């Protein structure tokens, strides 16, 4: 009974917005499909690893910017989420160097 009093007005869907969501979906699918093609057609190398990382970051960009809507938030919000991730970059550098050092210590150069 109460619900009838508070009936919300349903705003019709914006076709362009829906189409945009599916376009982003298509990008994500295509990048993932391309990852599969590369996975089985290139030998393991630094270049292959870099290609995978770049593709992952592109996918992460689309998910964060469009799906999580971060691209449409204020600059302050964007920066307060993205800037702290610099610590992760540091961690990657520090621990990969450390891993290499462990390898050298155990197995020699």
């Amino acid at each position, binding site marked *: 009974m109460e*619900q009838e009093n508070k009936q919300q007005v349903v705003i019709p869907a914006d076709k362009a917005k829906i189409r945009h969501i599916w376009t982003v979906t298509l990008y994500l699918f295509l990048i993932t499909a391309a990852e599969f093609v590369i996975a089985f057609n290139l030998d393991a190398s630094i270049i*292959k690893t870099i290609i995978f990382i770049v593709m992952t970051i592109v996918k992460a960009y689309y998910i964060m910017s469009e799906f999580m809507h971060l691209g449409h938030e204020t600059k302050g*919000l964007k920066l307060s989420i993205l800037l*702290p991730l610099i610590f992760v970059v540091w961690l990657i550098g520090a621990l990969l160097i450390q891993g290499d050092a462990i390898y050298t210590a155990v197995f020699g150069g």
Partner: protein
Amino acid sequence: MAGSAVVVEENNEKLWQGGTPPMKASYGKLMMWFFLLSDAFTFSSLLVAYGLIRYSHPAFEGDVANFTFSQEYWPIPDMVFNGMPLLHGMHLPLVFVGIMTFILIMSSVTMVLAVEAGQRNDRNAVEKWMLWTILGGLTFLGCQAWEWTHFIVGTDDGGSLLDGSIFYGANLSMNQYGPPNFAALFFFITGFHGFHVFSGVVINFIIFYQTVVGKLEKRGHYEMVEKVGLYWHFVDLVWVFVFTFFYLI
């Protein structure tokens, strides 16, 4: 004290002066973002630890076709994750993981559509898309259960441990695929992510329920859908990274 109050009337548009949410995001959404940031640190620590441990082990040298499981070097993921339900014994590298990735991306898309419907106060559409999202999450969890079982039970031939004995499957201290840490990291990283998916499904279900009984409509807005949406997309985002660093590289 009374005389010391100074009121500065300065109109600086760039400064937040109260009255509206800071950064134009509501308290709940802002806090969800900061929670996700802290969660991102946890997941990056796990994945970077994987990088460290993998770097401190020798890699397999030679042709991929000649690859065999050994404790001496880190296994090639293609050769470990090549199973598929109902297709026993066939070598189908990463196919099942690929399907899981598509399922999770799809459920992320249905979540975007649920958020979009919520912004239009379209209760029926929110119900429909939330239900699809929950189904996608449950399917993913089912796939992961199969993946774990396959990994734990092992292959028909097993693999030899350092003392020469044959071991089948994996546990936290030893496994047939490679160094002990390989299986330990598999359980930790995919398990931690899987638990996020599980809690995401539970939270999604609560919001779905609140939509169905009309609670959110009575409240007048569907912001809760946006908040759980952020969490759900984050789970998808993490899987994108797990997929690359654990399965592809």
